[in-house]
């Protein structure tokens, strides 16, 4: 904990304002069975020192958006068909492969869901962290090792020095995810994308990892994009939440607004489906129906077949993501009614 001390005390020289912006991004997957429109105009941003949670079911496009930002989308089948991803105002989708590579790790880093498969099984954890310092920073083996051990220390892995030469399978799930975090933070990135970082972990360990992530994010004043389908996870850590459905943002708000008064029926359904202690013995509430087939998205609002509030207009017109004031936005024809309902 040497160079990253008091949060934002010196401003750390980082430019304020829009750090990373995704603007009307469109991605489709071209498969033998047809074209799946996975991302249909996603717009969100994250600033330095802020955590944006991206919430959604599997298949809502939250991970694909992240992969597109990182430039690790599998092409084929994935193709970006429109929009921009701006980092410090520059569109990364127009950069050369080499420029994008340099941003990875140093500008934007990513941690993955399943740390066992995401770490290379045949190299030691220490090697995989030190590699960052050796290859990207040109440090000597000895110096890189020293820095890697410091990183392991920072993510609170006990006996970091001894653990350096262990292989990923010799770590427990939680420790492995910590090592993964250490690896992604090695080059001191400005934005960290955490793609379901706790999904593969035990509940008790989940909280520890989220705490660690929150702490490191504050210390380093990073912008963080936290991708999750777990409403419980985001409440403590996130500043803002973007809810995704069928490749679009359907609602964006800060945590208190969103939990207090959701402005989209889908968000409402998600919140209602959290099991509550005071409703013990009652049937769990769910959102009826299934997420849409992305090769054949319903006309109008994609959520209309499952929406309890659906009206004829919902089948005809795609609701735009409209600002509702106080920094929140919703893509529902009846957003005002929802917010203003008492």
């Amino acid at each position, binding site marked *: 904990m040497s160079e990253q001390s008091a949060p934002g005390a010196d401003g750390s020289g980082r430019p304020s304002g829009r750090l990373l912006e995704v603007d009307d991004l469109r991605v489709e997957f071209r498969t033998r069975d047809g074209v799946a429109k996975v991302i249909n105009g996603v717009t969100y941003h994250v600033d330095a020192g802020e955590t944006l949670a991206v919430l959604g079911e599997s298949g809502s496009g939250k991970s694909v958006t992240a992969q597109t930002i*990182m430039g*690790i989308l*599998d092409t084929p089948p994935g193709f970006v068909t429109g929009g921009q991803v701006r980092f410090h105002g520059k569109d990364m989708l127009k950069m050369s492969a080499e420029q994008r*590579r*340099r*941003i*990875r*790790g*140093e500008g934007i*880093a*990513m941690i*993955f869901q*399943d740390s066992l*498969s*995401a*770490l*290379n*099984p*045949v*190299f*030691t954890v220490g090697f995989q962290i030190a*590699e*960052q310092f050796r*290859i*990207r920073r040109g440090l000597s083996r000895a110096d890189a090792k020293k820095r890697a051990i410091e990183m392991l220390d920072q993510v609170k892995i006990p006996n970091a020095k001894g653990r350096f030469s262990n*292989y990923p*399978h010799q770590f427990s799930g939680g420790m492995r995810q910590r090592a993964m975090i250490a*690896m*992604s933070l090695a*080059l001191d990135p400005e934005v960290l994308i955490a793609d379901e970082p706790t999904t593969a972990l035990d509940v008790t360990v989940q909280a520890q990892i989220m705490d660690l992530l929150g702490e490191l994010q504050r210390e380093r004043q990073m912008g963080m994009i936290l991708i999750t389908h777990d409403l419980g996870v985001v409440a403590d850590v996130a500043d803002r939440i973007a809810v995704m459905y069928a490749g679009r943002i359907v609602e964006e708000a800060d945590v208190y607004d969103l939990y207090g008064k959701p402005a989209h029926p889908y968000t409402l359904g998600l919140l209602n489906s959290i099991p509550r202690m005071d409703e013990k013995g009652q049937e769990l509430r769910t959102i009826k129906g299934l997420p849409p087939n992305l090769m054949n998205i319903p006309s109008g609002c994609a959520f209309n077949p499952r929406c309890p509030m659906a009206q004829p207009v919902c089948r005809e017109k795609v609701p735009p993501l409209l600002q509702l004031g106080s920094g929140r936005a919703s893509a529902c024809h009846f957003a005002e009614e929802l917010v203003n309902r008492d």
Partner: protein
Amino acid sequence: MGRYLVRRLLQLVPVFIGTTFLIYWLVWSVPGDPFAGKCGERRCPQQYIDFMTDKYNLDQNIFVQYFTYMQNLLQGDFGETFSGRSINDIILTSYPNTMKLAVVALAIEAVIGLTAGVLTGLRRNGFLDNLVLVSTLFLIALPVFVVGFVLQWLFGVQWGIVKPTVSSEMRFSELIIPGFVLGSASMAYIARVARTSIAENRRSDYVRTAIAKGLPMRRVVGVHLLRNSLIPVVTLLGTDLGALMGGAIVTEGIFQINGIGRQVFRSIVTKESATVVSIVIVLVLVYLLMNLLVDLLYAALDPRIRYE
């Protein structure tokens, strides 16, 4: 690791005894008279046959013969041919030649097969991929002697780039064409296994992580991808050395190399059972040791494999 090694070496003992006995028994059961035609146009004198039968224990039953043979073998003595030549001598002159040829073949198939496999695995369905696919099919389908004679004719006779046959000095440059011929089929398999392995691992999570770390592509492929994809290839290569040595007979014939293939062939024709058995036994040893080496290499390549 040390205990594992000792256990594996001890396991070799029953396998060694079993295989050698089988070979001995097989060669022993081949019908025919070793002394037919030994003495020119006429039958050998009874005196000679009696003398030889006694000298080589030919009237004993197979177990006694095998036991005597193994007793001598353990003292490093492979015995003598019927003409009194030391079999140790034969082995010492023929084995190094075959070994050289097999090692050259192994090196060629490893380098070419692996390169082709990696390149095609990274870029599937391209021109190179189709080219390699078709040419490996050719190499697998064509018998060795066809490949051998065609290349010998092309390089040795038609273009005159190399001498058509290998001299007794066994120079490396002379062994390139025979080595290629000997290794050609295995090379095709190596290329295909490497291609599949690379293509499979290319989409794996850890490769995606390596890219997300911002590592240059050549490091992602050369370090992260290759190390994982090498495991099945190493198995194939390791067990192939024995097969190459045993299968060298045709290649040795085409290129006039004085190796074990020719020796075994000659010994079978002249019913020199002791020579056949001795050469094959050494081959069995090579197989067993290479298998052990491959198993040990596994652990070096994949730390998840632990021996206890």
